[in-house]
């Protein structure tokens, strides 16, 4: 079978006879295509072409198309092609491909690598602008929706808020406790190790206390929630958008911001400060434990020093940041969710963006707070 000739070319007087034989099927497409291309590579000295299909045994779409290509090539060379010996079984398929590909398919649009690169840079820059404006616009929408809900508190979706609080808050407690505990322990260990050289181990308590309560507690919790809940928000809202669920809500007279987004934002804004308290306590416990076991000062000493080192202001500075962090994470997650378009890829991309952007913004915001508190001298 493999050795048989798929295309026999012979010249009869002023006529070129092309005898197709055997199976013209996709599995042998490359052989057949090479044969077909070969026929008219140099113009044969003939006036007409006959394509004889009498010996054709099997034909599929690829084969039929290659016969059609042969016919068109002959037609282009003004050789008046004629197909003879068509098995009735193959006729429909040949007719079908004869009306296809009337114009060549458009080529893939290809630009140079440099143009591509510049285009990407341009798009990325424009994206940043769009990001900013869409966050601002979306914040506006949320404020308007909140206003409406404030005027008619019955419209607040309490059940939904509780449900999301459970998801983003309560269920995050174990992992938040664990991570903060470890971070507190590591901070204390490092502090003791290095301070010991100056004989200043006891200052470890000041360091751990202030660092955890002012910065680390809230930062770690924010980053965890951005990864854990922000991504979930984006993916949920994005897939709802893909399946027209948002549109369904809208046509039923509900505002998606009010129904889907406000409860999620409120849950996050409530949960993040609470988790910060839990997380900071866990970090202090971790620090205390290491100070006791590794540093050798008992819990009473640790607590005593902590009481001296930490003022109410320290705690306030940490806690006041928490709701802002939550708002940033929630807003970014929801904006990204609403920007998802039809494809699965777009969903993945926006979920990634949501996490990366919210972590970035959380850290930038923390920087602003640091400058602000330094300026007012707290």
């Amino acid at each position, binding site marked *: 079978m493999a050795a048989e000739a798929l295309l026999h070319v012979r010249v009869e007087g002023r006529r070129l006879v092309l005898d197709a034989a055997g199976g013209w*099927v*996709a*599995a042998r*497409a*490359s052989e057949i*295509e090479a044969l077909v291309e070969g026929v008219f590579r140099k113009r044969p000295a003939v006036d007409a072409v006959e394509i004889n299909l009498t010996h054709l045994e099997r*034909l*599929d*779409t*690829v084969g039929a*198309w*290659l016969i059609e*290509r042969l016919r068109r090539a002959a037609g282009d060379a003004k050789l008046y092609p004629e197909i003879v010996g068509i098995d009735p*079984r*193959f*006729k*429909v*398929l040949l007719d*079908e*491909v004869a*009306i*296809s*590909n009337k*114009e*060549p*398919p*458009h080529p893939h649009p290809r630009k140079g690598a440099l143009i591509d690169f510049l285009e990407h840079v341009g798009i990325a820059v424009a994206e940043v602008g769009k990001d900013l404006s869409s966050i601002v616009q979306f914040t506006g929408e949320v404020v308007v929706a909140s206003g409406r809900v404030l005027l008619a508190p019955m419209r607040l979706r309490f059940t939904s808020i509780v449900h999301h609080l459970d998801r983003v808050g309560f269920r995050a407690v174990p992992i938040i406790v664990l991570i903060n505990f470890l971070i507190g322990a590591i901070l204390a260990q490092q502090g003791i190790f290095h301070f010991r050289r100056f004989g200043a181990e006891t200052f470890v308590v000041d360091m751990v206390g202030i660092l955890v309560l002012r910065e680390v507690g809230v930062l770690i919790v924010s980053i965890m929630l951005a990864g854990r809940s922000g991504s979930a928000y984006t993916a949920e809202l994005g897939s709802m958008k*893909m399946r027209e669920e948002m549109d369904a809500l809208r046509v039923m007279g509900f505002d998606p911001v009010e129904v889907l987004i406000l409860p999620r934002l409120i849950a996050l804004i409530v949960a993040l400060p609470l988790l910060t308290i839990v997380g900071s306590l866990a970090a202090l416990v971790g620090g205390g434990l290491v100070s006791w076991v590794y540093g050798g000062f008992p819990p009473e000493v640790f607590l005593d020093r902590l009481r001296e080192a930490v003022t109410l202001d320290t705690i306030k500075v940490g806690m006041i940041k928490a709701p802002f962090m939550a708002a940033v994470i929630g807003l970014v997650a929801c904006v990204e969710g609403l920007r998802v*378009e*039809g*494809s*699965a*890829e*777009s969903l993945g991309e926006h979920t990634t963006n949501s996490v990366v952007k919210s972590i970035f913004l959380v850290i930038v915001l923390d920087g602003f707070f640091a400058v602000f508190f330094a300026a007012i001298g707290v």
Partner: protein
Amino acid sequence: MAKSKTNGVNGGETVIRVRGLVSGFHGVSVLKGVDFEIKHGEVIGLVGASGGGKSVLTRSLIGLLPKWSGSIEVFGRDLDKIEERERQAIERRWGVLFQGGALFSSLTVRQNVQFPMRENLSLSNRLLEEIALAKLEMVGLHRDVLDKMPSELSGGMVKRVALARALALDPEILFLDEPTSGLDPISAGDFDALIMALQETLGLTVFMVTHDLDSLYTACDRIIALADGKVIADGPIETMLEAEHPWLKSYFHGARAQSRSGAAA
């Protein structure tokens, strides 16, 4: 508009044999012992009430749903008893059109249709482009859709692209889940004609879930009716018209069916 098909395909080899198929979800059975056979070259229409398990049956046939008991043989091979390699070889011999289209959302129309060919055949790029366009034109789409994303298509266009993709490898068996729903009546008629044409040329065996009475009359050699998880009738359209089962009576003699047979007479 009587059935004009002449190539009576009786006596062909059996390509699908289903015996006592039971399947369902969460302990509730949907299919409760389904038996039927499909011969090479037949066009089978599967009818049944909405939610009656037609999609479940189709998905079981192509091995997407585990079955609780019974056996399914495709090309004479029991799908449970063959190795992964042979299974893949069989899967390349069938094409599936899912009820929702199931186009790859991150690929363009062109890439969707080319995907199975690119993976399974070694075609030159030029041939790949030409065949993809030919398939799309066969199902009645214009070349303008080539670079659209699935999310930019209308419901009927999604169906057609999905069909073009199902046809990409010139399969021997075509499983179609409600191919004509979402198409206008003219396109649905063209679609039936296309199925019959392909059936004739490529010797396709077609297993089609459909509610379209026109398709049942014109395109299908045989109809299998599913109710209460069992096959309640199996035969050409005449058998359906004569059947005594109340569901079949109202299906084929209800108001919509009446208006159709009135128009056809």
